[in-house]
């Protein structure tokens, strides 16, 4: 079984299904289309406040879907400089537009070399297909 979820070419991915869009010293973070599809309807997101320091692959947010509570890990170390204000009232934006309006936070990066530890779109697609295969 191969995934039909979207995996944009211009992003980096974590093994825990977060994406990272690096722009200069900052990066926008969200969860992947595959992740939101697995979670089902999202009803609440517990996001950090701006100013929080996060470290690579440490838990920084929690997403509650109708089915399950799921932790979100930081795909980069840095400081949270922006939090998506729309998600408080409309957490379903993560379902509808995980790479756009459903972004979670913006980080100011403290370690640019960490990007090497993340997955390319092709490597992430391979990971998703492998996980789908294991669930058959």
């Amino acid at each position, binding site marked *: 079984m191969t995934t039909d979820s979207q995996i944009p070419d211009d992003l980096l991915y974590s093994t825990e299904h977060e994406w990272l869009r690096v722009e200069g010293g900052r990066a926008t973070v969200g969860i992947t289309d595959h992740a939101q599809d697995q979670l*089902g309807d999202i009803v*609440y997101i517990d996001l950090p406040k701006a100013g929080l320091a996060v470290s690579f692959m440490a838990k920084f947010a929690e997403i509650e879907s*109708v*089915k399950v*509570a799921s932790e979100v890990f930081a795909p980069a170390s840095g400081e949270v400089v922006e939090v998506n204000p729309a998600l408080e009232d409309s957490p379903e934006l993560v379902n509808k537009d995980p790479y756009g309006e459903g972004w979670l936070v913006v980080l100011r990066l403290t370690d640019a070399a960490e990007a090497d530890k993340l997955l390319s779109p092709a490597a992430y697609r391979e990971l998703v297909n492998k996980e789908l295969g294991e669930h058959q």
Partner: protein
Amino acid sequence: MTSLRTLPLRDRYAALGARFGEFAGWDMPLWFTGAIDEHMAVRQKAGVFDITHMGRFRLRGAAAASKLGSLFTRDPARLAAGGSAYGFACNDSGGIIDDLIIYRLGDDDYLVICNAANAATVGGLIEGAISGSGVEMAGLREAGTVLLAVQGPAAVDAVGALLTPGVLSIPRRQCREIELGGVSYLFMRTGYTGEDGFEVLVDADAAGAFFDRLIDSGEALPAGLAARDSLRLEAALALHGHDIDETTTPWEAGLSWAVELDHDFRGRDALVEAKDKTTRRLACLVADAPGVIRGHCDVYDGDQVVGTVTSGGHSPMLGKSIALAYLPRRLAREGVSLSVDLRGRRLPAHTVKRPFYSHPE
């Protein structure tokens, strides 16, 4: 890994894009388009659930009523033909082995529908009770039948328009067998969503065509177990294995209306003894802040743990989290401010009258 049991209509659901998950040993649709859309469709119009996984046994014979009555908190002999009764199989302590519905199909002819996870247990109890009595038992789940629940304010009219207007005159909680085109359908005007509707028992071949017509008509949305769970929780309907089990009595669960003490059944003496002596009661909680209460969360009165959540989730109708929890009797009333521990975060909540939501009359 043990292999999961498969619904006869599974291919249809896969073609509609269903997300599947394991429930009670069955591979079941969790949702199709999305659990919240499906929940709202059932509240506003209609949805159709496949509940083929549920246990069902047909009992025929002169002693059927008395044998079933010896196991269950309801006395089947009191049902008129076409009637139904919700009740329990209890253990000797009055704890709930399962909750179920008994339908009287005709003279000496009964159907018992119970939870999927308890089907083997309930089947074993019935087998033991009817042994040597001449009552015949048929496990319909194993006989290739499908059970579809069509639920929602438009459900009864939709079934009437698609199959036969004959179903429109079946009163609430009643059932009727109707033969259409050589196929026998059992229509039961019962459900587990807090809405009007039918549960329809029919052979798998005819069930597929019925499901297709329902969906194609646009009158009902296919719905999965996630919506079934949020709907039953809003209606504050207990789920066995969570809100009720062998350690809880019907008194504690607030389900005394489903116990008839004036007939003899297993667990009766213990229930008589326990009546009016319960120290806890199943209560309804509504969250007063964002967050989702889940099963097993601790409930606090001030800094003291006073109970544990048995079922919790998001209520699409209220837009808040709701939960059921056993609380000391003094707290199990309306308007008590409490809090719930969500993995270290304390979420304020208050008690409300059961249910959380009921369909406006």
